[in-house]
């Protein structure tokens, strides 16, 4: 024997307390479809929550416009980040060929090193190798000086890329 309550009321009701909690996410459209249905069903019959929803909309608008007036990130900040991030690199090598579709990247800095490999097949990139970890500062002295040529060429290319 099937329960007929589900036929009569497919959306279980919620009370005012639940509705008040969900209001901020209703005004930003971030409720699940089920939550939205339940909220809308309650709202259509609750004048108190209708009034409160207007208040939440007003707050959302005020908060959003206030935050929007904060300064945006500047190019100056990017330059500081770039010099800090890229100057810290001791060496970075990218080995690979587009024909074979395999690329290997090694990056080392005074605090960190990483080894990454990816395989590109039919336009999709698959990560096949990945390792990162902290390194001691003493290790940087043992790096192979031969990599500096590759590093210098790459740094020059990337500087041009970043300066665009």
């Amino acid at each position: 024997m099937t329960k007929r309550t589900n036929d009569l009321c497919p959306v279980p009701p919620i009370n005012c307390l639940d509705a008040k909690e969900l209001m901020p996410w209703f005004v930003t459209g971030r409720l699940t479809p089920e939550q939205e249905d339940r909220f809308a069903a309650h709202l259509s019959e609750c004048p108190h929550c209708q009034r409160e929803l207007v208040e939440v909309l007003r707050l959302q608008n005020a908060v959003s416009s206030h935050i929007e007036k904060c300064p945006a990130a500047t190019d100056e900040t990017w330059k500081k980040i770039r010099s800090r991030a890229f100057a810290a690199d001791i060496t970075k090598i990218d080995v690979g060929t587009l024909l074979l579709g395999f690329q290997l990247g090694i990056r080392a800095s005074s605090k960190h090193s990483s080894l990454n490999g990816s395989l590109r097949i039919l336009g999709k990139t698959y990560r096949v190798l990945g390792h990162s970890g902290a390194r001691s500062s003493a290790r940087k002295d043992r790096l192979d000086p031969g990599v500096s040529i590759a590093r210098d060429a790459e740094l020059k290319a990337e500087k041009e890329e970043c300066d665009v």
Partner: protein
Amino acid sequence: MTDAQLIEAVATGSRSAFRNLYEQYADRILRFAQTIVREPHLAEEVLQETMIAVWRSAGRFGGRSKLSTWLLGIARNQAHSLLRREKRGQRTPAQTMETENPAPSIEQQVVLEKAFGALTPAQREVLHLTFYDHLTVNEAASVLGIPPGTVKSRMYHARRTLAKELQ
């Protein structure tokens, strides 16, 4: 390029991908930091530290959450670390930040600024993530490292306080 491809490229050391990531997310990170630390020069420092952390540990992004949620979580950690340093007296010297959008002088903005300042950092965070970044309850919970139920109750008290301040 999708977010997953973008962070994957950053993890392999692509500087142009890192630049793209900055262009896409810097404003959101800076404004979230500003909401927490309330000082433009400190917010800029949080943005820098967040981006450096991302450059060094992009490979740790597991893809379990959205990239934006992951970035905002890192920014939040950096902002709170900075606030703890500030409390211990290791103050970052203030620098004059040139901005394209000077502080609005209209009375409404002054009232809003004062009301926003009256909230706790935890209340400002949840208002910011919900009303400005439009995160879901679960996404906000992920950024803040708290249960979804706490996000709802924190939001409830935050908007009560803000409404009272704005009266």
